[in-house]
């Protein structure tokens, strides 16, 4: 038996050593560099780049708490938008940008889509009829076109350039947003807003967006121009809102009010700058007669407050004019009393100039006799086929009522009587 020496196997440690060296001196540093680049440098570059890009295109600035980048995606967290005075115009928990390439180091990427996650936007209608957000979104003065050179005899200035492009995609998605509208008329907060924002050079358009407000459902649509000359339009639809939620935090909170509301409001910036528009508001299943304006009517008629009475119908149609809310018709029908109202509520101090025609019966009068000279108590008159008018002045919270002769039966009042008969077409 011969012992033959086997050839020695190649040393296993050599490639292993090379592998270790490769890992130690090449792979690890590269990985560390990539990680450092991806997690530290690139987010910083993106964060600074976005803030600078936004500041160059609007009259405000953006602050971003942190950023992270993916292959074709950037997520900005803790985003705040400030106006020129440093006031917060809006915030978002996160903004996700999808790009056409890796966001850093391969040229300027195009943004393919934007998703705003839980944005919270405040829009205040200023006295000049402009929303404060329009000023923020306007092109900054430094980007305006330079003054034209005068050549020859021509000194005609060219037309103004369009606002600076925002380099945004055509649409921006909004997820679970909050919109706080502050206007002289009403200041609703819309939450749970899921919407699509259409981006154009001169305006942002909100397509029919579903939301919640005052415990009910809502939809909002409209557009907002970039800058004061561009105008705006807002349309708000509300269904099944809670009266208790509506008056919460107002001076009316202590009153015995309840019920559900449906309504619609459309506002545009008028030719003189003021907001103008129209709307309607219907209440049902409600206790509304404890409103000070109604109580003043009952007091002058020497009637006990029917505050616990349920309102079967409460219908209001109104126009929004530059300085006041014009109430075209205000129908209130209960089992005990019916009121027809119209008139004005001035925005300045909420001063009232309303007229009510009361009926102490759900039935319309047989004839339309008017009362020539009103004397108190007038309750006896309004039980009969004689009509008086109760004029309400003062303010919303401190109204003053007095009876006056009713000389004219207007068409809306006739419509109201038609409604009482069940023949109303409206």
């Amino acid at each position, binding site marked *: 038996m011969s012992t033959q020496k086997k050839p020695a196997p190649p040393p296993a440690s050599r490639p292993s050593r090379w592998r270790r060296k490769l890992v130690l001196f090449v792979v690890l540093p590269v990985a560390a560099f990539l990680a450092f680049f991806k997690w530290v440098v690139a987010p910083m570059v993106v964060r600074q780049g976005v803030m600078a890009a936004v500041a160059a295109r609007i009259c405000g600035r953006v602050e971003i708490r942190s950023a992270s980048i993916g292959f074709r995606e950037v997520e900005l967290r803790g985003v705040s938008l400030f106006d020129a005075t440093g006031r917060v115009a809006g915030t978002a928990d996160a903004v996700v940008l999808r790009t056409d390439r890796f966001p850093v180091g391969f040229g300027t990427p195009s943004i393919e889509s934007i998703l705003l996650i839980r944005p919270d936007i405040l829009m205040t209608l200023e006295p000049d009829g402009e929303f404060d957000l329009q000023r923020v979104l306007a092109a900054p003065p430094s980007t305006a076109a330079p003054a034209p050179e005068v050549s020859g005899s021509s000194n005609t200035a060219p037309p103004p350039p369009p606002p600076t492009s925002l380099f945004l995609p055509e649409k921006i998605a909004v997820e679970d947003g909050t919109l706080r509208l502050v206007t002289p008329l009403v200041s609703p907060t819309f939450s749970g807003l899921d919407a699509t924002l259409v981006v154009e050079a001169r305006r942002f*358009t909100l397509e029919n967006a579903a939301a919640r407000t005052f415990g009910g459902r809502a939809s909002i649509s409209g557009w907002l121009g970039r800058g004061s000359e561009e105008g705006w339009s807002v349309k708000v639809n509300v269904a099944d809102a809670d009266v208790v939620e509506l008056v919460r935090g107002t001076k009316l909170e202590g009153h015995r009010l309840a019920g559900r509301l449906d309504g619609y409001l*459309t506002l545009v*910036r008028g030719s003189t700058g003021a907001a103008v528009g129209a709307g309607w508001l219907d209440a049902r299943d409600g206790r509304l007669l404890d409103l000070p304006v109604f109580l003043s009517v009952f007091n002058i008629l020497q009637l006990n407050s029917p505050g616990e009475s349920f309102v079967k119908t409460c219908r209001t149609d109104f*126009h929004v004019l530059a300085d006041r809310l014009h109430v075209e018709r205000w129908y209130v029908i209960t089992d005990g009393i019916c009121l027809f109202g119209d008139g004005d509520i001035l925005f300045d101090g909420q001063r009232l100039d309303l007229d009510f025609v009361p009926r102490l019966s759900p039935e319309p009068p047989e004839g339309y006799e008017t009362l020539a000279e009103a004397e108190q108590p007038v309750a006896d008159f309004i039980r009969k086929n004689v009509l008086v008018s109760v004029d309400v002045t003062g303010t919303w919270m401190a109204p003053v009522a007095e009876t006056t002769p009713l000389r004219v039966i207007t068409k809306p009042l006739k419509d109201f009587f038609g409604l009482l008969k069940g023949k109303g077409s409206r």
Partner: protein
Amino acid sequence: MKRLALLALLVAAGCTGSGTTTARTDDELVEDQAIAAEVNRALSRVEGVDRLKIQIEVVRGIVSLTGPVSDEASAKAACAAARRVDGVKGVRDLLERVDH
């Protein structure tokens, strides 16, 4: 079809948008908005129509309706309800029939 509807919507929005701030007086604007409000109220009584999903634009009495409705019958009923409102001179049916 959707693209066509979107194009029509954008054209309509563009027309009404520029018109609202430049061409119409405040009285005309209020009158148009009042018509829009009345049409909105009228739509609340139309079966198969969710008024919260319908956008109403009015320019000098011409009403444009956009948004989804359940079917052709609902679209016709919505347009008919809009036509019955005082002051309406015409109705542009841009409604999207979702059953198609």
